[in-house]
Structures are given as structure tokens and as C-alpha cells.
């Protein structure tokens, strides 16, 4: 304080009863500016930040179950949470049994549906990603494809099912074909957008160095487009998983969609609710896996 006064060449102010706060809290900082950092004066006791983030979804789920219970009590034929839970325990205690073609465990049904999604979606990736690259790279191709994509993209994938049945003359390939069609559009469109979004700077680097086409593709085009491609894949899988349930209801055989329909015919509503949750959880797992994958390949 004294030093400040001298520098400013003003009369030293007469300290008016030095406040205890100043003496305790400020003085050390002024007198010894290079002293070790003081411990904080007080630590506010508070719950860890993750606690409300963990609690909120649990409360949400609990409210949902309570609401469900109230609805089932109100009358009608909706089974309550508890009876559904007991039924679920039973269903999942033996998920992989086989008693003929129309009576198999829920595990088989889910796996069959996943396999259809995997095949249809994989075929869509094999076709859609290269197509997206070409459409994104060449203006002419893009203009050529634009009207077809614009018209076909909004069509419900199920509208393709009769065509599939006609062409393949069997339910299973027809369902896979529907998955293929609905996965195709997001894959093409996102890949093409990704290719168009590549910053000119990156391409200039390639031009200045005169990199070979192969190097341009592997070191610049592909990594630059990858996040967009993964977005396309994520959207496709989401749509495919939505569509498979509906497609299987129509085609029959085995699969989670058919299982729902079969249980409806048996009037086993508990099983339908179990199926809804199973579809939801599998969809969630698929989505989260894709998000993790996307995070792995995003830069900056």
C-alpha cells in the first residue's frame, strides 16, 4: 500500500481503522505476490455434478411406470407394469427355444430381424456410398440423379414390398429388399453432401503437392467424407430398424415384427409390450454404437 502511494506521489491516506477482512484476506496477496496459492477461503458443499444427471432419467422412468400403472388400473385390457414384468422374465428366461417355424424364442426373432437389417443395410452401403461419392464429385451425375432421388426418397419403404414380393417370389428377400431401399437414400445423400463439403484448402494442398489420385482419395477425400458417411449410416440404420418391424408384420415367418403380429393374434398383449420395449432398446443400442463410431472419426 505504501509503495503504491509513493509511486502515485499523493499524500498517504490515513487508514480508517483497517478492516479485518483486508488484513486477513488481501494483505498476503499484496505483500507476497509470489507466495504459493492460498487455499480457498471456503468450499461450498454441494452434490457432485453427475448426480442430477443420473437422477433425472431415473425419475422420468419411474413416472412413466406410475402413469402406465394408473392407465392399466383405469380399465381396459392394458396389462400393468408388474404383470408385463413377470411375463418378460418368463420370455427372456428362455429366449432361444424352437418349437416349430412359428413358435421360436424372442432371441431368435430379434436376431433374425437384425440379420435382415444387416444384409439389406450392408447392400445399401456397398451400393450407396460409391454412388454418393460419384454424385458428390461430378456435377453432371448429380443433376442426373437429383430428380430420381427427390421423387423416390419420400416414398414409404413398405410401398416397395409388393414389387419385392413380385420380383423375388419369397417373403424373406422381399423384406431385405425393402430395408435396402430405405437405407439407400440417406447413404447416397449424406455421402454426396460430404464430398461437396470438402474444403477447397485441402484440395489445394493436394494440387500443390500433385498427389496421386489414390493418395488424394485415401488421405483427403475419404477421411474428409467419413463423418458424413457415418451420419448417413446412422440415419439408415435408424430407418431400417423402424421399417423392419412393419415389413415383417406383412411378410410373416420369423422376426420381431412378425412376433408382434403373432402375439396380437394370440391376444397376448404383455408380449406385444415386451416386443415394443425390445425393439426400442435394440434401436437405442444401434444408435449409440453409431454415435460412438462417429465420435471416433470426428476431428477438431
Amino acid at each position, binding site marked *: 500500500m505504501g509503495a503504491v502511494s509513493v509511486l502515485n506521489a499523493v499524500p498517504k491516506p490515513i487508514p480508517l481503522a483497517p478492516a479485518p477482512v483486508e488484513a486477513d484476506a488481501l494483505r498476503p496477496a499484496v505483500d507476497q505476490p509470489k507466495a504459493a496459492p492460498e487455499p480457498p477461503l471456503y468450499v461450498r458443499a454441494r452434490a457432485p455434478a453427475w448426480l442430477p444427471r443420473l437422477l433425472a432419467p431415473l425419475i422420468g422412468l419411474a413416472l412413466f411406470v406410475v402413469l402406465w400403472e394408473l392407465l392399466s388400473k383405469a380399465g381396459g385390457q392394458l396389462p400393468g407394469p408388474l404383470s408385463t414384468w413377470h411375463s418378460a422374465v418368463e420370455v427372456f428366461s428362455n429366449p432361444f427355444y424352437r418349437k416349430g417355424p412359428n413358435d421360436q424364442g424372442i432371441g431368435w426373432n430379434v436376431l433374425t430381424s437384425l440379420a435382415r437389417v444387416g444384409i439389406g443395410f450392408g447392400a445399401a452401403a456397398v451400393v450407396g456410398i460409391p454412388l454418393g461419392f460419384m454424385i458428390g464429385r461430378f456435377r453432371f451425375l448429380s443433376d442426373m440423379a437429383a430428380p430420381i432421388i427427390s421423387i423416390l426418397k419420400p416414398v414409404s419403404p413398405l410401398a416397395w414390398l409388393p414389387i419385392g414380393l413380385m420380383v423375388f417370389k419369397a417373403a424373406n428377400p422381399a423384406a431385405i429388399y425393402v430395408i435396402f431401399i430405405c437405407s439407400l437414400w440417406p447413404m447416397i445423400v449424406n455421402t454426396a453432401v460430404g464430398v461437396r463439403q470438402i474444403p477447397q484448402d*485441402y484440395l489445394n494442398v493436394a494440387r500443390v503437392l500433385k498427389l496421386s489420385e489414390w493418395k488424394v482419395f485415401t488421405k483427403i477425400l475419404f477421411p474428409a467424407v467419413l463423418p458424413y458417411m457415418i451420419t448417413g449410416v446412422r440415419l439408415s440404420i435408424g430407418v431400417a430398424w423402424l421399417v423392419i418391424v412393419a415389413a415383417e408384420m406383412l411378410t410373416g415367418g420369423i422376426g420381431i415384427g412378425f412376433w408382434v403380429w403373432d402375439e396380437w393374434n394370440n391376444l397376448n398383449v404383455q408380449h406385444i409390450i415386451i416386443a415394443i420395449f425390445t425393439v426400442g432398446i435394440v434401436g437405442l443400442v444401434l444408435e449409440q454404437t453409431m454415435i460412438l463410431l462417429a465420435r471416433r472419426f470426428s476431428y477438431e
Partner: protein
Amino acid sequence: MADKFLQIDKVRRVFETKKGPFCALEEISLDIRAGEFVSLIGHSGCGKSTLLNIVAGLLEPTDGHILLANREVTGPGPDRGVVFQNHSLLPWLTCFENVHLAVERVFGATERKAALTERVQRALELVQLGHAKHKYPHEISGGMKQRVGIARALSIEPKVLLLDEPFGALDALTRAHLQDELIRIIAATGSTVLMVTHDVDEAVLLSDRVVMMTNGPAARIGEILAIDLPRPRERLALAGHRRYVALRAELLEFLYRKQMREAA
């Protein structure tokens, strides 16, 4: 030959726009000696970056041509190292890999793997980033990214180094630091350099000659100022140097009196 290492010969450039042709550069001629450091300075929009891109081969001149060591420039090529304004590092490659991409392209056919690695290492050490080679661009500061860009440009041993406002996006302190670094690097490598800048101090500090361009459209070379300050140059010693102050004043005079921007 040594006096006309890089020749810019009557280069004109016209852009086709929706409102008709726009002449960005009107007959620019400039000879640059081997080992010379030349800066292009002018107000924004005067076509200095256009000229640099023509030398880089990224743009074609409408008329005229560029000769580098007596060979005509017909497109981009690794005989010219370019440092872009915004570093242009590939974000999915580490610093090492970014430089390696360039080194591999130029020396990959003639040298063994170990020699290539050695070259990358040397380039990164030249810009004092040997320790950060395994970092990704998003993990390092803006100044460090720009240094990797310089390392990449120098690693291919270009005949001429082209710098497009290399420090424009950096804060003043980092910029000063990198300018000093560039002085040291150029002294060590003896590179021929063409740099675009709008920073008067940067131009005087680094250059042998400063080429002042008139305002576009149809920009021309207004004046050329030889910076006859002794090297090695030292920022602090120069600050009060009479010749430095005079040269700086001359540049400012050109930019702010003779080439005042109307209603800028």
C-alpha cells in the same frame, strides 16, 4: 540466371463474373533473384493473393507467363512450397504425417523410408516442433499449426517458398515470434521467398524488396522499395533504427496517401 530466378512476365488476370469480365491484375512484371525475399503489399482486394496463386499454379494467368529457373510454370507443383493463410493442415493426420505426406510425394521414389522419416524430423525441428510431431492439428495452437505449414512447405526443398499472409490469422505476439522464427529459418535455408502481406512492419522486417501494388481492379505494381537494412535483423534493434523508420514511413505513405481507399 541468378538475377532472374523467378520471372513474372507481363501477367494479366481477368475473372469472368456475372457482371462481365473483371480485370484483377494488369500486366505485372517482376524478376526475383535466387535467395531473395520479396513481399507483395497492398490493400485487400488488390490482387496480391491472385498473383501468388498464379505463381503457385493454382490459377492460370489470362496473359503472360511465369518462369521458375527458366522453366515455364504450367500448373501447381512441388518445386514451389506454399504456406496457406489458414495453415491447411489435414486434421486427421498428425503433424508428422502432414509433413510426411509432402516428403513422401517428392522423395518417396528415390529415398528409403528411414531417410524420409529423417527429412520430416528435420523439417519439424527447423520450426522447433520436434516434440509435437505426434500431435493432431486440433491439439496445438494456431502459431504451431502455421509452423507445421511452414515445415511442410520447406520439407520438399522447393525452389521458391510462397507465403500467403502466413501470419495474418495470428495474434500480434505470436505473429512477432513467428516472424523472428522465419528470419532464422530463411537465414539457415537461403530460400527464395515471395510473401503476400498487408502488414507494413512485417514487410520491412523480413524483405529484401517490397513490391507495393496499386488498388484493384486492374492492379499494377506501384512502386518497389529496396529494404537495405543489414542482416541479421533484430526486431528490437531495428525499432529505433533511422533507416527502418524511414522505410516504414515510405511504405505507409504509399499505402495511406497515394493509394487511399475511397470510403474504405
